[in-house]
């Protein structure tokens, strides 16, 4: 894109969404660079959304080779056309995503991003990671925070009929119009590590049970050295034991993390496409908001459970960052 104005092509293509968020926001989107790591179904949905939205570039990281396992919830993988033959997930998704919007640069980066230096992350405006260990999440989050430039950080995980999304916009300032006036807003976000370190008993009373359940499984994988998403119903007893320990440490009643919920999460480990669409959609909206600077971003966790149908926001932050 040359110059400051949107091109005629952009105006025609983006007409309907410019009517939602305005031409300025569209311009900002077109200059943004997004890093995405971990290409399962939900992230595939997210990538589709932001490519359609017209971001400047999307960089994909996922060196896992495509197998039949990866097919189910990921519509970017085309079984037929020799689409995958020893290709990585990133490569296959890249080809498909390019088709959705030729104006967006879609590229692949290989390697383990936790080994990349801080300067690598400086190129991006937003980093989204999925299917990675607790350690890696914390590490990448920290790298984003070390930069003088604000790099938005997001994680998503979907298990069966449930999904979780986390947002860290660090120190986020934006303006919005309220009754003819422009008001300045500021929100402070905790890092992922800070958020999950908030003692459970310090959290508001009706925090989503899903938050705790996800933390238990996350801890289990961390302690047992499992690959993310590999914990299954076979680990039931181990997980319940860990729950007991964590609840004791945190003075939380075990009933706050019901058996039934944990069992659901352990049984349906694969992604459920409708939930991928929902979480991928919410994530898309959030990233668009953060980049365009328009709209109230959510802080800082979003949960969806197809069982009760609620999509809710939880503010998990310590006293200093509580809004």
């Amino acid at each position, binding site marked *: 894109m040359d110059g400051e*104005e949107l091109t005629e092509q952009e105006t*025609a*293509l*983006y*007409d*309907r*969404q*410019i*009517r*939602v*968020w*305005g*031409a300025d926001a569209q311009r900002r989107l077109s200059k943004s660079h997004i890093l995405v790591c971990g290409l399962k*179904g939900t992230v595939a*949905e997210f990538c*589709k*959304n932001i490519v*359609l*939205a*017209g971001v400047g570039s999307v960089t994909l990281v996922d060196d896992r080779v495509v197998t039949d396992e990866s097919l*189910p*919830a990921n*519509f970017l993988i*085309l*079984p*037929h*056309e020799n689409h995958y033959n020893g290709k990585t997930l990133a490569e296959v998704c890249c080809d498909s995503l390019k*088709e*959705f*919007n030729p104006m967006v640069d879609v590229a692949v980066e290989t390697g383990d991003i936790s080994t990349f230096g801080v300067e690598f992350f400086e190129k991006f405006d937003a980093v989204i990671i999925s299917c990675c260990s607790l350690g890696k999440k914390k590490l990448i989050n920290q790298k984003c925070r070390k930069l003088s430039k604000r790099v938005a950080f997001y994680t998503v995980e979907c298990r069966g*009929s449930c999904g979780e999304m986390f947002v860290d916009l660090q120190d986020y300032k934006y303006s*919005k*119009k*309220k*009754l003819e006036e422009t008001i300045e807003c500021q929100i402070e976000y905790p890092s992922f590590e800070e958020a999950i370190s908030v003692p459970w008993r310090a959290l508001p009373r*009706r925090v989503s049970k899903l938050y705790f359940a996800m933390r238990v499984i996350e801890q289990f994988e961390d302690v047992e050295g499992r690959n993310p998403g590999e914990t299954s119903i076979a680990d039931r007893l181990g997980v319940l034991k860990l729950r007991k320990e964590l609840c004791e440490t945190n003075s939380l009643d075990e009933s706050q993390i019901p058996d039934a919920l944990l069992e659901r999460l352990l*049984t*349906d480990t694969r992604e*459920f*496409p*409708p939930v*991928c*669409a*929902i979480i991928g*959609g*919410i994530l*898309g*909206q959030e990233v*668009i908001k953060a980049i365009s600077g*328009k709209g*109230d971003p*959510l802080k800082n966790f979003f949960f*969806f459970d197809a069982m*009760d*149908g*609620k*999509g*809710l*926001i*939880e503010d998990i932050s310590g006293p200093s960052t509580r809004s």
Partner: protein
Amino acid sequence: MAAQEQLSAIKRAKVLMVGAGGIGCELLKTLALSGFQDIHIIDMDTIEVSNLNRQFLFRQSHVGQSKAKVARDAVLRFRPNISITPYHANVKESRFNVDFFKEFDVVLNGLDNLDARRHVNRLCLAADIPLVESGTTGFLGQVTVHLKGKTECYECQPKPAPKTYPVCTITSTPSKFVHCIVWAKDLLFAKLFGDKNQENDLNVRSSDTANSSEHSEDVFECRKDEDIERYGRRIYDHVFGHNIEVALSNEETWKNRNKPRPIYSKDVLPEKQTKENGNKEKGCAADDVSAMVSLSLKNPQDIWSLVENSRVFLEALRLFFLKREKDIGNLTFDKDDQLAVEFVTAAANIRASSFGIPLHSLFEAKGIAGNIVHAVATTNAIIAGLIVIEAIKVLQKDNNNYRMTYCLEHPSRKLLLMPVEPYEPNRSCYVCSETPVSLEVNTQRSKLRDFVEKIIKAKLGMNFPLIMQGASILYEVGEDLEEDMVAIYAANLEKALSELPSPVTSGSVLTVEDLQQEFSCSINIKHREEFDEEKEPDGMLLSGWVEAPVDKDNNKPIGNDESTSNALPSGETLEGEKDDEIQETSEVVEAFTGKKRKLSEVSEVTAPDPSGPSSINQNKPKKLDIDDEADELIISDDWESLTKKKKL
């Protein structure tokens, strides 16, 4: 939801999707990924460039092709072994009858107009097939589930009708920009470029007795040897100058209103436009002709000055006559016709200037004139996910867990996705509960034709009606009617109700049926002498038919007035025309006005539902305890207004 059971139910299911657009693309993809193997999809549209920002199954190279077919091909690429049957057709066609619908386990709507939704609703009721409805506008969306006898049908709750404006507001006393757009589009543009035989209110009430109707006709016709430039200025002066002066001469009108000022071209553009601009058009195909290009006005988001608007007006008019002569006389406004949009924008702005109404950019004007719905991919994706979740419950007959889900832009009590239990059917719904409606009409003046067009088709949504009084058939439509019957019905249309072979008078009860929708309705007739020309322009008043109040509050921000499908109640029906998707918005807005719907407190500490074991709620009014924030849903093409808090 035992996994194996669920999977088998999904695999066996035969699903009908109606609509392959914004929601449709996302829905088809998610259904395919979720394991559905037999999907049928109906859509009458072809692909346009403006679809591509969200209808991701389509590419630039597909523009002009059938949405249903291209969507199918695209999904088969990643799910080659499933069956998707596309129909490039209008769902109202007679082949999509009750027997057709009965073949399916569930129907999923991804439509953009009220008419089609009502039609599908009736067919699903007649076939007794569950229907999952949905709609999105910008960041808002909703999914609702409808099961005959168990929940409300789609028409149990009032759906707002397209906004219309009183004739005189458009012709004489506009106060908002949208009034100017309607004037420019439905009056001036239609008069100059549309069907000459159509009735047109352009000079209504603005001509004095000295002007005979023939004289008015002359004004708009281009004279034989008239220079196009002169013609343009003559039209300009007539509508923006002369007509305003005539209107001003009626003192009454302006007692409590700001007077408009007449505008003449010589004052705004003193020198004649030079022929220089002609050079820019060389090599332009007729379709690409544009006044903006010709005048070097680059940015559709700029608000032009009166001078610039006047230039665009004259230049657009000139280009129509020079480059698109063959179109003149058959044009209807099309939002994708650049020159038409330019002309309407300019004309509306000049009129607005005259009346002291703020001017708007082409981009904004186009949105208003074209009833453009703002749309993004993410909301459609979310809604599609929610639809599939409900569809799976329907297949498993999971009766206690159906939900209506609302996708909000701003959280209400932490919720961005708000599930609500469905309501029981409305006992007074004339569609699913077969409650009679009442019509007040002057039976001696109103003709059967008016009754059929304005009430039966427009308000009651029947396409192929059969009208009876007792055993007498007054009117019907059909393919295999005898010639003499057709003649009788045609004659009946022109008769006043009380003059019909079986006279319709006060106390008459008419039965109206639509055989295709398998829907029947009783209408109680009541004679009334007088009707208010302004408020009841049709001369008929239907009650018992629940219509949501159309907002007449003049204080609302512009965003809420943009649904101008058929602004003048001239009896034209909206069939085949995409009407206001803003309606879905209104439905979502409806949900939070606190007047019509109930939101259950969905948290764990809800008191036990007094209605007993069934989870379907009674229609008892309950105090709503939702945040004020939830009332904030203002739908607007303008981002800023989206964040405005306003009580509805």
